[in-house]
């Protein structure tokens, strides 16, 4: 009935946006929702899994006609594995492995990668690392061999290693991201320490060799592939990983979110030109499904904050919800950015919102459904490389016996009740932290929001 009324009203108005050039022609006033198909979504192309002779797992997805093969090597070693006193060790070890020699001399190694037209890109997260390499289809076997050789037989020749350390020490970093990270992680691990350029430059070769030996073992390594490949091609090329020596599965570090007395960490830094506020909750150990629920939760909370703070009060520019995961650690974060003059009021409003939500869970099934739909659409349209990478990440976080369902299947099964459980787990007042960093006024009454540590 509402649509009929709308249609009648619409057809009587022209131009439809008075005083402007924007006109919806009468014969184009269909409600798109009326033409939306009720058909089932097309079935997903599955990510296949196979296990090689030496127990290395490979996830792969065939992409017919693709000229590219995307390779991702996942290693169960991340920032949390940095020993105390050696922040950045995992990241620098990984970067040096691809330039400082392998079974090839460094120059020959770099020339071999260059002949492929590309070089590996390594990224280190809290609990794991990923190395990505995209090659043309005819170069697949050669590219995979070079990658694995670099990881399995790193030389860490002095000159190129020093160059890597120098670059890492001098690289531009996001100051707000650094402040946030240090605010979240408790002291006592390499990951929570300042990335000290002098310390990084002086990393001894022996430390890198030992770290690589611990990290690159079949039981901590997983392979992801997407491209115009079949199982035979993958098995043939993956023979290169057969030579990896099985190592000890050393106990993974678990980090408590620390018993802090401060609930607000203030890190003023006017040079950043914007303020970043993060409300963080520690959810401890989560299953894969709970992590998906936590992702939805943080998106729902950030979407609600956006609605209140930006749309209604004009306080913030962007909000973001994310979950940062490591071994036994899951931090749920809701962050937003704003300008200096709005930072305190926006933060106070956000704190009030969380207090209100804590007292009375206000997120209706409709709100949850809206955000879920957004995430479902995002999941369905992931590229093959991205889908494979998600499976690699899950394997690294949950191990070989982890959740078999896809993220999409888990997303569809989560309801408002599941989100509430995660909210209670992660955002209890005693587990909630505020990190305020960047261009903020230290003279604002921050202590009215909680015990301040600066």
């Amino acid at each position, binding site marked *: 009935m509402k649509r009929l*009324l709308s249609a009648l009203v619409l057809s009587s108005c022209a131009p439809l946006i008075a005083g402007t050039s*924007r006109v919806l022609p009468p014969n*184009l006033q269909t409600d*798109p929702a009326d033409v*939306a198909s009720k058909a089932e979504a097309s079935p997903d192309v599955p990510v296949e899994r196979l296990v090689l002779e030496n127990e290395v797992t490979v996830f792969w997805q065939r992409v017919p006609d*693709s000229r590219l093969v995307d390779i991702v090597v996942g290693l169960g070693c991340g920032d949390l594995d940095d020993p105390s006193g050696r922040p950045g060790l995992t990241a620098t070890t990984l970067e040096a492995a691809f330039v400082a020699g392998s079974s090839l001399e460094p120059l020959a190694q770099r020339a071999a990668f260059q002949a492929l*037209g590309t070089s590996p890109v390594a990224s280190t997260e809290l609990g794991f690392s990923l190395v990505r390499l995209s090659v043309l289809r005819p170069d697949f076997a050669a590219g995979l061999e070079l990658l694995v050789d670099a990881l399995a037989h790193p030389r860490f020749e002095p000159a190129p290693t020093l*160059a890597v350390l120098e670059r890492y020490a001098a690289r531009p970093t996001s100051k707000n991201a650094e402040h946030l990270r240090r605010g979240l992680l408790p002291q006592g691990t390499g990951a929570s320490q300042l990335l000290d350029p002098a310390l990084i430059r002086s990393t001894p070769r022996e430390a890198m060799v030992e770290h690589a030996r611990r990290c690159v073992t079949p039981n901590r390594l997983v392979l992801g592939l997407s491209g115009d490949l079949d199982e035979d091609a993958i098995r043939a090329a993956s023979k290169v990983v057969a030579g990896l020596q099985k190592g000890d599965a050393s106990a993974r570090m678990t980090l408590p979110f620390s018993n802090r007395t401060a609930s607000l960490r203030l890190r003023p830094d006017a040079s950043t030109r914007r303020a970043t506020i993060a409300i963080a909750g520690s959810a401890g150990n989560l299953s894969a499904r709970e992590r998906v629920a936590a992702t939805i939760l943080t998106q729902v909370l950030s979407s609600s904050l956006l609605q209140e703070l930006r749309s209604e009060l004009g306080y913030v*520019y962007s909000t973001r919800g994310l979950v940062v995961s490591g071994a036994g650690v899951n931090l749920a974060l809701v962050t937003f950015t704003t300008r200096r003059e709005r930072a305190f009021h926006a933060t106070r409003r956000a704190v009030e919102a969380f207090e209100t939500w804590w007292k009375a869970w206000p997120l209706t099934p409709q709100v949850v459904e809206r955000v879920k739909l957004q995430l479902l*659409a995002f999941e369905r349209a992931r590229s093959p490389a991205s889908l494979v990478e998600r499976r690699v990440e899950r394997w690294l976080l949950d191990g070989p016996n982890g959740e078999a369902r896809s993220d999409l299947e888990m997303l569809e099964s989560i309801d408002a009740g599941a989100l509430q459980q995660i909210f209670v787990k992660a955002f209890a007042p005693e587990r909630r932290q505020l990190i305020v960093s960047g261009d903020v006024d230290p003279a604002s009454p921050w202590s009215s929001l909680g015990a301040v540590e600066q």
Partner: protein
Amino acid sequence: MLNVVLALSFAANPTVVTLSNGMRWVLAPSSNEPRVGGVVVVRVGGAHERAGEAGVAHLLEHLAFKGTPVTGPFIEWRLEHEALDEVLRLTERYDTLVAERGEQSKEAIELLMELTVAEGKWEAQAIPWAFVALMNKHDLRFNAQTSFDRTRYVGDFPPSQLELWLTAQAEQFAAPVFRQFRAERDVVLQERFDSESPFTDAMATLYQGALGDDRPWSLIGSPEDIRRISPSTVDAFYARHYAPSNAVGALVGNFDPVQAEQTLRRTFERIPDRSTAPMPIPPLGPPKHQVVKGRERGVLLAFPQPGLFDSRSLANRVALAALTQEGGALFELCAANKPCTRLTLSRGPATWSDHLLVLAMTPSATASPKQLLDEALSRLERAAPSEAQLRAAWKEVQLDAAHERSTRAMRAAVLAESLINGAPLDDVFLERVTPPSSPAEVRKALARFRRDQASTIVQGGP
């Protein structure tokens, strides 16, 4: 030097549908694909902005996702329209008052209160996220990008939702409603701040010098202009450029071309055409050398490059890759202990036609910008990549091309540009338009990176 590569296969050759209003669509069906990628390319971008409205193209792109008269009203459009009209009218008045008397003036504060009340009344009549929610509900992924001379609206969706996507896109094209105008303007302003580099202003100066007229030539807008852009400015910009004959569409993936054409005729063809106000991008002028002040010391070194559909472009891309890859003249310039600490590349304007390639370099503490510039130009004069380096460069360019076509939406965008530029539509990698080059041609292309071709800016710091 040349590898044989597989041609990207389509189940049927792409065809072109020309609607009666002048809009053209490329249809490239392929049963190998699980979904459909679509794009609507409007031939407008930052290059078409007039003085005082730098950033308007980007703001319009943002506002386009706030819905239409059909998708967005809470009860009915007539009620919302009245309330929204009042909000936009007060917004214009408020902006003018702030410009004249300042944000803290009594009159401005009072008017802001009035505007806030009006926005509250409007909110009861609208669902500003309705368009986005509709897309999400039906598994339609969407995005948009504004570049120098194009605004692209892209989508990726299941085959069953072809009609939904085309209907929604057509209505969005014909009648975007400017909901949450002030909030979106603020977001665009913040995005402007986020994408700022120490060379943002110098880039604009460079393009003004190269293109020789007084347009802003700012890809990301200017804060002063963005703050002042009014609803009527955006509407006027829309009127000048968003016409069916100034746009091209493309569909790639698993769809029935007959059904697609029928749906296009029921949707986009119903949008009446309108005359637009084209502002062609002038040809690149002769090299210029300028000195400016800026937030940091630096050098901009710019070379004219042939557009992507020019037969010389591939040789140029290979030459550039040879210069910037490890061991290349420019790479070595910025390696450890050399006079440059950072090198970034950007292309603008309009990579589809002749454009500028800009190298932005930050000098090390011990080198002045002028020294860095001289060193860079000398290295370029002496650059002589080996056969191995040229092979590696060619491989890199092939990989880039594969990445640029790795999604359906990207391939749709290439097809749309091929249509605009008169290139064959079954050649999505442009291998016939720009056939692979011989080493001799690549070496000839290196000559386009020499002193006599270079426009430069030396930025001397604060």
